[in-house]
């Protein structure tokens, strides 16, 4: 192919740039997703969360963005695996002795493995909530009425799917909670390297602000997955917080 743009994207730097940009997009997505999720901890039988879920599945702009999201997740995963395979092919005979470099974190040399773990988690996660929500497959008759009615501030009545009930049921299952916790630990390690690495690949390396990016990346990689993991843990323990949180 002789198109300059295709040549650019298929060069080693272009391929890494794709990883960097899709990675940064997915990082911003994590923040939005976490904001929505934290509404699950309201002690309101899921009213705020269910109305938010309704908005997220019907707003055309969000719908449009979500297709971009699916595409970028797949692009990040496929490109990452291709890079991994190419890099494996570039290495020769394995060293008999290898000293661990002081510069190198465990996460940085296991990004592909962590990525696969996250991808498997995404499969389980999408099956459990996205699929169940879209096709109304509730696993248990005990969940009751899958539609709930809420009276809004302007006296109108909204009839929405009860995703909260599905979450409540899933997070009462021990194995699902464990899967979520392990996956969030995997995500934390992936971000531990990925956050700052994305900036370096973009060419943003400067003595003035690189230490700042690295610190933000490390805080982000711990705090965000920890908050994600907190939700199934608190659900399992039956704890809600005492105030009402509205994401938007």
């Amino acid at each position: 192919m002789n198109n300059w743009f295709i040549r650019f994207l298929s060069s080693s730097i272009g391929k890494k740039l794709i990883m960097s940009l899709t990675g940064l997009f997915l990082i911003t997505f994590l923040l939005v997703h976490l904001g929505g999720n934290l509404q699950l901890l309201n002690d309101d039988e899921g009213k705020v969360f269910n109305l938010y879920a309704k908005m997220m599945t019907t707003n055309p702009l969000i719908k449009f963005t979500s297709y971009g999201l699916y595409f970028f997740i797949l692009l990040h995963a496929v490109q990452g695996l291709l890079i991994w395979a190419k890099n494996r092919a570039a290495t020769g005979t394995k060293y008999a002795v290898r000293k661990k470099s002081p510069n190198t974190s465990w996460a940085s040399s296991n990004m592909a493995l962590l990525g696969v773990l996250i991808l498997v988690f995404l499969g389980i996660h999408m099956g459990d909530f996205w699929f169940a929500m879209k096709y109304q497959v509730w696993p248990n008759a005990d969940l009751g009425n899958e539609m709930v009615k809420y009276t809004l501030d302007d006296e109108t009545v909204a009839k929405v799917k009860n995703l909260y009930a599905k979450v409540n049921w899933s997070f009462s299952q021990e194995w699902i909670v464990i899967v979520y916790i392990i996956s969030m630990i995997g995500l934390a390690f992936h971000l531990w390297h990925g956050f700052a690495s994305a900036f370096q690949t973009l060419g943003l390396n400067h003595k003035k602000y690189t230490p700042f990016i690295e610190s933000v990346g490390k805080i982000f990689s711990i705090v965000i997955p920890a908050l994600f993991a907190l939700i199934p843990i608190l659900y399992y323990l039956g704890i809600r917080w005492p105030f009402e949180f509205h994401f938007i």
Partner: protein
Amino acid sequence: MAEKSINIKLKVWRQGGKYGDGKFETYDLKDIGTDMSFLEMFDVLNEQLVSKKESPVAFEHDCREGICGTCSMVIDGQAHGPMKGTTTCQLHMRSFKDGATITVEPFRAKAFPVIRDLVVDRSSFDAIIQAGGYISVNTGQAQDANAIPIEKDTSEKAFDAATCIGCGACVAACPNSAAMLFTSAKVAHLSIMPQGKVEAQKRVEAMVNQMDKEGFGMCSNVKACEAECPKEISVENIAIMNREYMKAVLGADPERK
């Protein structure tokens, strides 16, 4: 200070040629002076091997003062051995303990095939330099040194990158066998200087393309290269190269040859 001496066990990779299978051979060396360099220790071993009518261990060396980039070897899992910012020739036996077993392997990468024992073919680096690691000037009378004023900070930054001796330790240290530290040091060195700016866009594109063609891996920002580089080249140069590459490909005139 009186010279001390140590006894060591050397595990060395022996390989006949590009396509042969290699294996480790173990040699016991007695009374090795600690003031010897690592290569002098190999000279001692080879003299012993030759006197026993065995084939000596092939290894590369030239200047033996740490500036030519010819010596290679991965010593105990580190390119150029355990001492930071040092080439194998400048590594001395005082860095090793008496009775130590030292494992010596060639630089490993698909783009660095073994020629014999510890000697690898690094002509892939030459190909990257030939693709654009130079500036085009007319030869003739030497230019006046002050004809183009260059700020000291700028020239020092370029010089830091230019200290790369092209030894390939970055590739040897990289889990992906990527040559990005080497290529970026050359790209950064030339693109920072006004003389190099003229061909900066053409250069970075050509060098990166050649690097890909030679079968090196891709950088995953593990930064192992920086730690093992005998000249302590910074990975900041990789960021500079990435910027230069994006500028060149995204910003350049599509008609440019």
